[in-house]
């Protein structure tokens, strides 16, 4: 593979302008992440201190092997929901290294409303368990939750991917022979009680940990029986009488230490035999990505400049360099793993769609994981393109991509509009991991198109109702519509709803993908096979 020759100059005024702009964007991202991770009302912090409890993030840090990476997922989940009352959707999830083994970690955030589960909390936990299932990753649950947030119960209980899905996923993991460990640091009530109960191993802390279907108040209301926490579901009762939990610990630290020893007993899973070379840092500094991404989100940029700042040695073997040039395909190494990259350099045409479908099939033949770098406004529209079969060529790309058996990873670099999102492995297409950069936009269509379309509909409605329409009113409606749409277009809106697995500082993309790809190697490859390609 040859090193990509960057055409950018770091001293170019445009590069400098981009750089200044993107550093501000990243600063805002970091500020928001910091707030979601650390800023809590004093009374919540006081309460935890009073209970002698560690902060959830301290637990996670202590659980992890020191000096090892932790890929946190969906840090900004729920940042635009519930009036910001549930930072990080009241849970911490991620992939980290415990006793030398990669594990998925779910920690209830008891520094927010006692760790109560909001609908998005459940979505975040379910997503983590989906990741665990897809990648065969053992899970460590750090349980400390007051249970479902009752005010939102209609949005968190009944449906297929709501609370029950957590337990269904736990069972599926167990069936697949993937270990789970629960460390019980607080009360696990009602459904929450099944998290430790359905884990292969559980450790419970004396005095603060408790597991029961109904807590003492509910028991009193239901049967009149009066019973204390410890007696009803405390550590000693469960580890010596009921057998619901396996180990009792005197302190949280001891629980974590026992937990780490348990994980150390788990057999290391064999990875499927993906080709791996020694790791090499990119030749071009990933920090230069700030200067690569245009400050004007509509300006096109060459994805090769991004690839050069992401892959090992900035080396890239480009496939069909002169065909369907609106799409860049090729091989590179990332953290030593061979990957196939599919990246947008403009709108998708028939030729670029066919190129993508062909390259995706090659990667499947070659057992090479796929990385999609999205900057796509859609498939080309218009009479000539329809006549040439743009729709059926796009369908081929979607079919090839959708039926891939190799792990797929998607990064939303800039635009993710319309069917382009589908072809480029959007959320619905089961990318093992999907990350976004803080400036990415996602919707069925771009902002201007959408606002104009919506305005058109609105005007027709008003005319029918005989409402007055002057320039001023039109401008006001246009501004309102644009405001509402752009709000929904933003990466923060998307990540709030967990349409991705988290926003990344572009510089971190390499390591995030590295970890995601490494983790994906735990699951065996499926059998090859496709549906019917419309030829």
């Amino acid at each position, binding site marked *: 593979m040859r090193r990509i020759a960057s055409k950018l100059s770091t001293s170019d005024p445009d590069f400098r302008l981009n750089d200044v702009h993107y550093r501000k964007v990243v600063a805002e991202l970091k500020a928001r992440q910091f707030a979601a991770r650390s800023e809590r009302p004093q009374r919540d912090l006081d309460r935890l201190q009073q209970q002698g409890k560690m902060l959830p993030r301290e637990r996670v840090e202590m659980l992890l*092997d*020191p*000096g*090892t*990476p*932790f*890929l*946190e997922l969906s*840090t900004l989940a729920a940042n635009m929901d519930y009036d910001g009352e549930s930072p990080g959707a009241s849970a911490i999830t991620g992939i980290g*290294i415990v*006793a*030398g083994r*990669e594990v998925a970690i779910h920690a209830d955030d008891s520094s927010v409303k006692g760790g109560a589960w909001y609908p998005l909390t459940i979505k975040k936990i379910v997503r983590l368990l989906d990741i665990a299932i897809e990648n065969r990753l053992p899970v460590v649950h750090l349980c400390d939750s007051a249970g479902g947030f009752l005010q939102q119960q209609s949005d968190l209980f009944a449906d297929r991917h709501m609370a029950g899905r957590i337990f269904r996923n736990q069972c599926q993991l167990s069936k697949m022979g993937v270990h789970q460990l629960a460390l019980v640091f607080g009360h696990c009530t009602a459904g929450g009680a099944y998290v430790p109960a359905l884990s292969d191993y559980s450790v419970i802390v004396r005095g603060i940990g408790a597991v029961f279907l109904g807590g003492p108040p509910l028991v009193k209301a239901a049967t009149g029986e009066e019973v204390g926490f410890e007696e009803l579901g405390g550590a000693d009762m469960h580890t010596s009488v009921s057998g619901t939990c396996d180990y009792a610990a005197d302190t949280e630290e001891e629980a974590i230490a026992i937990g780490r020893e348990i994980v*150390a007993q788990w057999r*290391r899973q064999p990875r499927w035999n993906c080709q791996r070379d020694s*790791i090499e840092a990119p030749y071009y500094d990933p920090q230069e990505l700030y200067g690569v991404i245009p400050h004007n989100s509509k300006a096109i940029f060459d994805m090769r400049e991004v690839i050069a700042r992401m892959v090992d040695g900035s080396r890239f073997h480009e496939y069909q360099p002169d065909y369907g040039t609106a799409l860049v395909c090729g091989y590179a190494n990332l*953290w*030593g793993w061979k990957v196939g990259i599919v990246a947008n350099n403009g709108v998708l045409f028939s030729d670029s769609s066919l190129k993508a479908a062909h390259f995706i099939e090659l990667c499947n033949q070659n057992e090479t994981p796929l990385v999609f770098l999205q900057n796509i406004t859609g498939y080309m529209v218009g009479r000539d393109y329809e006549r040439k079969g743009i729709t059926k060529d796009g369908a081929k790309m979607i079919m090839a991509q959708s039926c891939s058996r190799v792990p797929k990873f998607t990064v939303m670099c800039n635009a993710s509009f319309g069917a382009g999102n589908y072809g480029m492995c959007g959320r619905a297409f089961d990318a093992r991991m999907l990350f976004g950069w803080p400036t990415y936009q996602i919707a069925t269509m771009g902002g201007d198109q959408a606002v104009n379309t919506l305005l058109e509909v609105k005007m027709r409605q008003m005319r029918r109702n005989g409402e007055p329409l002057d320039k001023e009113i039109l401008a006001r409606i246009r501004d309102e519509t644009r405001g509402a749409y752009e709000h929904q277009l933003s990466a923060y809106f998307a990540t709030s709803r967990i349409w991705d697995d*988290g926003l*990344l*500082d572009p510089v*971190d993309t390499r*390591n*995030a993908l*590295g*970890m995601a790809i*490494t983790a994906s190697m735990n699951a065996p490859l499926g059998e090859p096979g496709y549906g019917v390609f419309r030829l």
Partner: protein
Amino acid sequence: MIRPIRRLLIANRGEIACRIIETARKLGIATVAVQHRLDHKAPHAILADEVMEIEGETPVGAYLDSSQLVRAAIQKGCDAIHPGYGFLSENASFALAVREAGLIFVGPGAETIRLMGDKITARDFAVRHDVPVSPSVMADGDLSRFATDASRIGFPLLIKAAAGGGGKGMSIVRSLDDLIERAALAAGEAGRYFGDNRIYAERYVERPRHIEVQIVGDGKGNVIHLGDRECSIQRRFQKIIEEAPSVNLPDNLRAAMIDSALRLASAACYENVGTVEFIVAPDGAYYFLEMNTRLQVEHRVTEMVCGLDIVAIQLAIASGDGLPDQGSIQFKGSAIECRICAENPDRDFMPETGRVLGIVHPRQPWSIFDSGLSEGQVIGTNFDPMLAKLVTHGASRAEAVERMTQAIRCTTILGVVTNLDYLGRIIEHPGFLAGDLHTGFLVEHAPSLAPHALGAQELIDILIAAAMSNPGLQRLIDDVPEPYALAGGWRN
């Protein structure tokens, strides 16, 4: 009459038992070790040709049980018993019991042991044979008269137990006020340790040196000497560093002391090896201290300078052979011995316990490492805290000292706190190098012998060395697979 020794029971343990086995093996003598079960798999038991288990309420009790030991020797078909040092080595009744059982006791006769074992009779014997003794007075029960008599000698005085040894019951008294109180304490201590509460007071020599003469006698009045040893480096009246020959000792003084020693031994018709100990005052006066009727811990330094095997000499004499020819004995160079003890010099020499996790010792031809240690052995407080002896030889004292410095650096006993580093600091002390020795040396130089504070860099090196040797941390470092190991503590 020649009675060859074919099978020898060693009524001891630890390094000295190993040491005796070593010579016996060279001479083709079969060895039987005795072991208490607490000494299970101890090197002396492994080294010996046969092992006999001995029992006792306490482990020390077993090694002091003379009838059991004699029985063991008979049962195993031994023709001799070597008592080593300590335990029953200076016990006249044991020597008698051994001989009455028809066995050879490798040591002097019971009478000689009894004579020299009692400080009072030994002193009287010395006086009778013109061996200088320090002015002294005996306590006869009336402590106030004892005080009056003793104060007539002049202060400072040293109070000692008549039956004592090893510093037990000893104290220095500098005024009349202290005397009665200390005398009572000493008598009590003597009673407890030796079952004999007789004490006496003698002139205490300030800055005294402890010098001793190694003699060998055939029991018929013929004696030779193997030179002198300096044992002035002591803590709590117990030797920790010895050397041969003594440092800066004028020839005429050495000759006079050797002459005294030979006279004393000859008069006693001494048989086997023995040591005559003297106190030497700064003005060159010397006084008889006591005679040890056994092999000394520090016999190695004498062996190294005169090239003889003292245990072999003991066995030869015991089986009826004659003495080596004094004229053939040549003294070459200088030798030093350090006693490595399980004790903490930084905490008033408190005994230390633990499990021996590793032993490394020098292997140069000019060094000897005598130990009864093995890895995994538990060091308790049941036995003497001495774990090993390190001995070096050089053409000159300076060379022997330099080699000892090296040897200590090459020696490691892991798992138990020892005085090894302290010994190193003594050896490197300018006062020691200058040979300015006296028995109060360690107290006098205590501040400069204390360990220096670790430098920042040293501290880091040690902490990291410890961390890298901790299996838990090592696992924490090693267990992280590529490629995660390369990512460090990355967070997104």
